[in-house]
């Protein structure tokens, strides 16, 4: 095991150096400019994959491989997340002990609003994700919060995503230095290498989308959260954004942080903002 990862380390840094040389002009990015970042991010993928339709990026690996896309479309006829979706719809309508429901916690009764999450809460000065808002709604109504990585949270977010299907991602960054800071933290987390394999999110999802890591084809980073939550055959179950971040970390042998810790909330904020304009396609089915 030791030699294999050292080998990986070596070959990877070689690839890194190559990438660094070819990456577009390097400018001192001291001023945080999300609009420019988002434009550069989207153009990078549009140029790298000219024949992938822009809205197709949200289909992750299926935008990268025709055979996989066929397998996926076959499954979409009767998708495995069907049960989570129905359970989510039922849970969403079931009143809490105090008679209230989730609809009372969310704008527009929680229907068709997923594309605005996560948002920056100026009172709290932090990013609030959909999963966090759902648990806060439960706690505000005297109910125990759900685990961020288990089925109940996945069913709720699956239903809320379903009600927003097709709507373009619409994340706002208020004119507040703390919001810009959160965006920058998210960006830094996305590009920072971690774990003994010394990979960052970008090592897989920017450098080599469309390529394989054993059986799986890597999804492009652009629109990677638009399909969340996802039913993964690998887990033969639903996965929330929190679960995905934790498992990605442990694959690079980095110890995952607590679900909904600041870094995860900020990287979700960054990834969602740069995907603005691309349609929500959740809940999704993935390998």
């Amino acid at each position, binding site marked *: 095991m030791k030699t294999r990862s050292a080998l990986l380390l070596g070959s990877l840094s070689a690839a890194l150096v190559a990438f660094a040389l070819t990456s577009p002009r390097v400018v001192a990015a001291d001023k945080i400019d999300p609009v420019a970042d988002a434009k550069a991010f989207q153009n990078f993928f549009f140029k790298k994959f000219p024949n992938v339709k822009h809205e197709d990026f949200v289909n992750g690996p299926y935008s990268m491989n025709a055979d996989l896309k066929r397998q996926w479309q076959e499954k979409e006829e009767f998708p495995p997340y*069907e049960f989570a979706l129905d359970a989510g719809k039922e849970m969403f309508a079931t009143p809490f002990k105090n008679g209230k429901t989730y609809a009372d916690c969310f704008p527009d009764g929680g229907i068709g609003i997923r594309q605005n999450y996560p948002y920056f809460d100026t009172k709290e000065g932090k990013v609030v994700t959909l999963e966090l808002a759902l648990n806060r709604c439960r706690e505000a109504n005297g109910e125990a919060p759900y685990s961020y990585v288990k089925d109940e949270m996945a069913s709720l977010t699956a239903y809320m995503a379903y009600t927003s299907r097709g709507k373009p991602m619409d994340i706002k960054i208020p004119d507040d230095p703390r919001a810009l800071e959160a965006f920058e933290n998210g960006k830094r987390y996305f590009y920072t290498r971690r774990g003994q394999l010394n990979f960052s999110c970008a090592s897989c999802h920017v450098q080599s989308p469309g390529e394989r890591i054993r059986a799986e084809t890597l999804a492009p980073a652009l629109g990677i959260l638009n399909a969340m939550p996802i039913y993964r055959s690998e887990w*033969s179950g639903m996965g929330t954004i929190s679960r995905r971040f934790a498992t990605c970390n442990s694959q690079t042998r980095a110890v995952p942080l607590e679900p909904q810790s600041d870094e995860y909330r900020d990287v979700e904020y960054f990834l969602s903002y740069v995907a603005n304009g691309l349609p929500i396609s959740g809940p999704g089915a993935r390998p």
Partner: protein
Amino acid sequence: MASSIRVRATSNGDITEVQALIQHPMDTGLVKDPKGELIPAHYIQQLKFECNGKDVFVADWGTAVSKDPYVKFSFKGAKKGDELKISWTDNQGASDTTTAKIA
């Protein structure tokens, strides 16, 4: 709780296409749980589709059928509005049944 069987039966007048998705773990009995004990085999053995009183399609399944199993087939001799009865039994003796109108 809703039935464990989701079914969609659509007819184009002559041929009825049936799709079914069933909520079931389909455990093979060869997999260990995190504590290292074998999860006992628990899988649907027979799934029957009846229409107008006679079997139109019977599935005999082994442990190699995926979790939350899905099957699609078509048959002739039924028309819109007919009722399709679907029932399954598994190796632990559990069973479930549901009916669906052909759309």
